[in-house]
């Protein structure tokens, strides 16, 4: 990791607090020239893959995010089979396998975006099939109700990260148990029921997902690559603006900042629990960690954490496990390197195939 200078760190911290800020707004906020901001931005993009992405209410795009995890004893051949199937499905957007888990088993975490209709139903049928004979895979999944992405640069000084103390982490969770229901659950995109959406809007969304500040020129290039008919700049702008209004939460994405350890936490709680649960405590705590992606519904919560090497994933796992109690099951695992992280663009081909390019309005 190359240390970050003061200017870059200031810009990143500002962006982490409000990722919707444009370069011009950033320049104003930081009291520097726009060219200075652009220079730093370009360098960070080159060296650290800086981007501002969009986290969607997928319902507004006609999709539902299904997420879950499967576990099995080490050495079993069922889990690799399940993992291969997930990887081969064009609807799967995230696959993470464990190299080592706190429960000393093997695990696969996944997320998939399901369109309405037969394709989505088929995917769910396949999941159920793996739960039954002859596979009998231990598999839990559900539709996400909320998705959040957090980056906390307050712990980063440009060179290294403050030590995250396992005890304090656990103590904070324990201490908040009595009033979890009043803790703020911030920067979360709530997932609504799927609605019909046009293919054009979907294409625009796939661009904004990769770059929240995408310009009409970028959109034009992408549409042209997909063989879509040319549109006026005014139309392109209008489309970008219309899609941005579809409950998108922007978030900052950056790499090479010393967060070399990726771990996944999966929590399953009894359905009858209210929202003052460990899940809510974890979600709040996620905002204090360096980098976290949180997906949850009423009884399932997943957290993907990027942590500095110095943090003991196992110590964190132990304090979480002690907080979990008898009605919850929590497992932490170190993710292997062969992860799949796809975006909306990976579904484009399927959807275009499914709906036919001639039709301009689709039930995705």
């Amino acid at each position, binding site marked *: 990791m190359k240390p970050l200078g003061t200017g870059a760190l200031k810009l990143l911290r500002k962006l982490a607090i409000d990722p919707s800020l444009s370069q011009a707004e950033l320049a104003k906020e930081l009291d520097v020239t726009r060219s200075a901001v652009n220079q730093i931005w370009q360098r960070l993009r080159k060296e650290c893959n800086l981007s501002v992405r969009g986290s969607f209410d997928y319902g507004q795009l006609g999709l539902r995010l299904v997420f879950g995890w499967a576990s099995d004893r*080490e050495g079993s051949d069922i889990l690799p089979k399940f993992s291969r199937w997930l990887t081969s499905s064009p609807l799967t957007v995230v696959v993470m396998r464990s190299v080592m888990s*706190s429960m*000393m088993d093997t695990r696969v975490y996944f997320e998939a975006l399901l369109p309405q209709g037969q394709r989505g139903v088929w995917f769910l049928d396949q999941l159920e099939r793996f739960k039954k004979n002859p596979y009998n895979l231990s598999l839990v999944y559900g539709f996400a109700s909320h998705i959040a992405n957090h980056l906390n640069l307050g712990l980063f000084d440009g060179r290294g990260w403050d030590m995250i*103390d396992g*005890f304090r982490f656990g*103590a904070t969770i*324990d201490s908040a148990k009595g009033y979890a229901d009043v803790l703020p659950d911030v920067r979360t995109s709530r997932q609504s029921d799927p609605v019909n959406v046009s293919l054009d809007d979907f294409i625009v969304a796939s661009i904004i997902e990769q770059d929240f500040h995408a310009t009409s020129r970028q959109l034009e290039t992408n549409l042209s690559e997909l063989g879509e008919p040319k549109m006026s700049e005014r139309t392109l702008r209008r489309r970008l603006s219309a899609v941005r209004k579809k409950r998108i939460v922007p978030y900052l994405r950056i790499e090479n900042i010393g967060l070399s350890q990726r771990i996944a936490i999966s929590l399953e709680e009894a359905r009858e629990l209210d929202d003052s649960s460990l899940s809510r405590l974890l979600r709040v705590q996620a905002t204090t960690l360096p980098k976290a992606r949180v997906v949850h519904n009423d009884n399932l919560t997943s957290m993907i954490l990027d942590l500095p*090497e110095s943090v003991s994933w196992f110590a964190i796992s*132990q304090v979480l496990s002690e907080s979990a109690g008898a009605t919850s099951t929590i497992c932490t695992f170190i993710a292997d390197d062969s992860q799949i992280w796809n975006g909306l663009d990976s579904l484009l081909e399927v959807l275009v195939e499914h709906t036919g390019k001639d039709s301009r309005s689709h039930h995705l």
Partner: protein
Amino acid sequence: MIPQMVHQGPGDVNPRLNKPDSGSLQIRTSYDEMIPSVTEPSARFYIDVMKIFLALYEGALSLEEAVSAAETLKENPEYAKNAIDPTLIPLTEEYKDRILSNLQTLKKFNLFTRDSVRSAFTFALLTPDAPISKTDLQILRILEKNPLTTLVDAAEAIGATPRTIARSIERLERNFFLRVAAFVDMTSFGAHSHILFFTLAEGIDWEEVEEGFALYPFTKNILKTTMTDLGYASFLIPGPEENLSIFADHVSDISAILFDYSSLHVQEATGANSNMSLLKDGQWQFSDAMLKIKEDDEAPESEGEMRLLECRGWQRGLTANDFIVTAEYSKALRNPPRILRENLRMEGWDFDGKQIAQSVRKSHDRGLILPFLSYSGVGLPTNFCFEIICNREWQDRILRAVIHLPSVTYYLSARGIILWVQVPSHHQVEYYRAFRALEDFEGVRSVQPIMTILLKGSRSELDFVRYWRFSSRGWTVDPELLNLGSYFPY
């Protein structure tokens, strides 16, 4: 004849340490405002441990008073679950600061449950890594080959003066908590070490099982994390020989009710090994010895001597005094006899110097002990315990491979081999996988892991023998006392 005990229990403890109405230790320290007040006995246990440490650190208690205070802690059932002797915690400013910081966090957040207070203590004791100098590393390498080497021999080996070696050892003791300890062949004195691995049956409450093990007077230590089903309890069972099968029957009886899996190991040999040679330029190198097991028909050859203490069974001519002195001596072999005598006296055993010298000599001459190095803070924070069920050939192969790992303790039984392995965090996955891969071989029936953030201590042998008789064939108890089932509510 067993010497007169200096004190027998809490009634004899220094009155300024004990508060009869609550059972809580009344120790005054200048940090009292930062220490939360708890009433629940198991939470109070950890608070008292930290109080004793702080009082000892700032001189509010003498070592003798602290030892007496620590003795009263042994009456708390929590002691059997987590045998901590606060007088053995190194008196460093770093530990003091971390304990105080964690106590303040507890107070700030009003966290007074056993789990919270235990967590505050456990995390305070996780040793941060410290850089080690070239000379200190050289000395550590010499000591790991021969823990009892003299200052003169060590000085000759690295071309330094004995004074330099002495200063280096002092630094290692201060910064890395270096201690030369020893395994003792308990069977020579008629006592037998057992370890029971288990997974709980459906519907069985761990708290109740843990309580049962904790109250059983022969339990040495218990390890089970909240993360995995597998746990273990270790026991020291005195003779006569028939007691071993009686104990095994009791284990079998409770296993049928409490456990889905149970596996009882009777110790045949034990030992430990470390390889500081893998630490180069401050970075631990990966040892591929475990991977070579797969490739070679022959087990990897060990360089040098295999450090193994075999259980040879009862030996004529050993006395209870020999046992007591050897047990205390084994905690710190490099302590001068004067300190050993003082420690024994503080533990409640009054010996003269001649008796101590004779017993120590016997422990060496008869091969009753196996010295090993204990240290921390050198970058080995990941702790695994593996229960490996295997045949004799694989027991030997595994043993010859694991002695090449950074740090390992082994326990051999007729069922296989139990290992406690410490490795750097950046190699934890590779080592873990190498161990799990052993299951692919025909001679290995199972490899079951437990991972912990800190290895737990165990009850001192001296705590056991206060209630045992020393017969013509070593330690013995009435077989009726071994009834393990009577400690469980099932």
